[in-house]
């Protein structure tokens, strides 16, 4: 199929950037979206134009590196699917496709479609862990955890930290990301000792990092490629309130 691509090009953080149009012919429906961009880049390079920079690594939907806004949707049209797992058969001959980076104050643009998501790391550094040094652990089976509880923790832990939730949210809120980490530990016995301090500290840094506030639109949940439930946000809110009360 033949496509018209509108791609955001921006040389560096200080450049103003603009949409640039590229025509691409003979795209196979079996290509992944990123392979389609590989083909474009190969062509651009041969023609002497610098390739479009985009983030990607595992191409298996698990590392959370890929991050494209495709036709206004984080990770594109297919639900529960990262950009790297999206295939061109979702598109048809003659389509115009608009490709942009994640846009959020907390995620400054590095180049073209690549953004800096280290704000997420900072939030985790503020409390997204259980404080246990190597060597402190008792036998793993000393802490029985019901299957249901373990499954809930796993549902929350499945977050890949891609930032689609922030990109899709009109407030650029990181609540779903923070809630997923807080809920993973809040649902495990090992996580209880630091439970409320964790919620409080992570939220404080989230605010510091210029993420917006949550107004319960749940765009995040819809955009999440790993189907992280917005119910976890309610859990975060409860733990955060409790942290305030117990202070």
């Amino acid at each position, binding site marked *: 199929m033949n496509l018209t691509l509108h791609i955001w090009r921006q040389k560096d953080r200080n450049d103003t950037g603009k949409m640039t149009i590229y025509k691409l012919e003979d795209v196979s429906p079996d290509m992944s979206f990123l392979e389609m961009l590989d083909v474009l880049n190969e062509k651009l390079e041969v023609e002497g134009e610098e390739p479009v920079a985009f983030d990607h690594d595992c191409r298996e939907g698990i590392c959370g*590196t890929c991050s494209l806004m495709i036709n206004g949707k984080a990770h594109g049209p297919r639900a529960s699917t990262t950009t790297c797992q999206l295939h061109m058969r979702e598109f048809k001959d003659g389509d115009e496709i608009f490709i942009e980076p994640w846009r959020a104050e907390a995620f400054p643009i590095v180049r073209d479609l690549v953004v800096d*998501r280290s704000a997420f790391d900072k939030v985790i550094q503020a409390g997204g862990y259980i404080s246990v040094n190597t060597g402190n652990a008792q036998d793993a089976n000393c802490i029985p955890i019901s299957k249901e509880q373990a499954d809930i923790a796993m549902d929350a832990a*499945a977050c890949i930290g891609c930032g689609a939730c922030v990109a899709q949210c009109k407030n650029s809120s990181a609540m779903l990301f923070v809630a997923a980490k807080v809920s993973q530990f809040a649902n495990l016995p090992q996580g209880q000792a630091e439970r409320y301090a964790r919620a409080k500290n992570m939220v404080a840094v989230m605010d510091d990092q210029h993420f917006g506030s949550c107004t319960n639109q749940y765009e995040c949940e819809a955009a999440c490629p790993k189907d992280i439930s917005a119910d976890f946000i309610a859990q975060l809110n409860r733990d955060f309130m409790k942290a305030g009360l117990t202070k």
Partner: protein
Amino acid sequence: MKLDSKIPSGPIEKKWDQHKFDMKLVNPANKRKFKVIIVGSGLAGASAAATMAELGYDVHCFTFHDSPRRAHSIAAQGGINAAKNYQNDGDSIYRLFYDTVKGGDFRSREANVYRLAQVSVNIIDQCVAQGVPFARDYGGYLANRSFGGAQVSRTFYARGQTGQQLLLGAYSALSRQIGAGKVKMYNRTEMLDLVLVDGHARGIITRNLKTGKVESHAGDAVVLATGGYSNVFFLSTNAMGCNVTAAYRAYKKGAGFANPCYTQIHPTCIPVSGDHQSKLTLMSESLRNDGRIWVPKQQGDKRKPSEIPDAERDYYLERKYPSFGNLAPRDIASRSAKEACDEGRGVGETGLGVYLDFRDSIKRLGKDVIEQRYGNLFEMYERITDENPYQVPMRIFPAPHYTMGGLWVDYNLMSTIPGLHVLGEANFSDHGANRLGASALMQGLADGYFVIPYTIGHYFASHKIEKITEDHPAFKEAEAEVNQKINKLLNVKGSRTTDSFHKELGRVMWDNCGMARNKKGLEEALKKIPSIREEFWNNVKVLGENENYNVALEKAGRVADFLEFGEMMCLDALRREESCGGHFRTEHQTEEGEAKRNDKDFSHATVWEFQGVGKEPVEHREQLEFENVALAVRSYK
């Protein structure tokens, strides 16, 4: 180059304990005076960085990823082994040790493998304490599954995302130390050289991928945990960024490189769909529990699979290995698939594929059971191929997946360069010529949490390490070299893209140094690779400048190293005149087509010493002694 494996004396069960007691210690108050440079933030690097910072060392950790959480370890699916014997099925440290030595086709170092099996139990404890949500049974206790090459159930898992959960555990421990100011983390920073002062590893040269700035970092020891080199084949199951640069540049500075030809080709990956293919996707080994592998008996049979009656199908693994059947080990399953395709019986448009069929198990167990077991994998398969594996058999084909070779290390995980330590997939030690499923995660975390934190202290306490800074001439010299190489790449201004060279190299490697190798093919590859490399340096086109985020430049540097490294791989494969594990030389096979080891001449690790680009490296050998496991023919019939 002297290869002293430093294996402690005494009975194998006591070696590690005794060694821990014998090693010198660094006083707690003095630890902060030692600066450790760690390159890599995967399972091995992140666990090492977190643990050493907890102990009080001044840790500086580097990754080319935008966050330590994105290291390739994140992609591991199936699970992690540990000799917990929670299933009461007869597992033990000794059995895990035995299985690993046998699975590696008797080409690993016994003492290291035994220690690995010993600390495996601590890994699970540590990860659970960190909040890793391993699968549980209804009583609330940890669940296990079985993996190839073992007759006990010892694999711990977190759905199909074990690597992700383990890495997030290590990342959280690392993040805690970064937050506490104990680890300085450098994201999007690529190590481009190792710096030696008076023969010791004293620092690295890096390039900041966002600004292009080339910088020096001096320290008291360097730890590489930079992963494997499967991407030398261009197409592999590894993440796109995986590369050999850090290990290879250390090799060029004098670190011995062991067994580069030991590569693992995983039997169940989604086949190539066209020239645009950028990487290959693994389908978990667990599928072989219920799927049956077959090809048509007839060559060139183009009928739909449903139209081919049972009598005209060849379930070749069941036929050739009746006792292991579809669960034959990876190397054997991969080679059999290749044979079937070479005979013209492969399926799919390209003829490079075999069927993995769930028809019979769906009939026997019902679709629901199959969905519960493999639902997410079936979905992933459908997303990629647009075919529904509940209705038509999956098509699979082998793909490069893991590399057992790596920088040579002694029992303390130190390379032949004093002060340079190597962890995880980047070293060569524990898996011999073939790795068992679910053992790489175990090894990465064993190295990082439970080995290096002890052995590095011994290194510091037993050497007098002069303080140096980045002003030392050795750093200036190395920086100049790195800058020169970058400029050279940018100034070739030729007409071919980096990817086109990478693909060309990959094809040569796959055809001649892949699943089956022979003298003729390897000699041919040894002629072709230097000429591809020469063309690369005369005709590659790398656009843009250094002082910016420049993906093309990053990639070109990595491919340049693969173009040298591939040659060493082929040479190693040529010199190893035997078949063992993942290294199959067609000249060395039994009448039934099985791998034929030559223990008399090849019971050693081959360690290569760099002599110059295009010059043949010098070969050294570490003789492997088997005192606890008797050398035997690996049989899975």
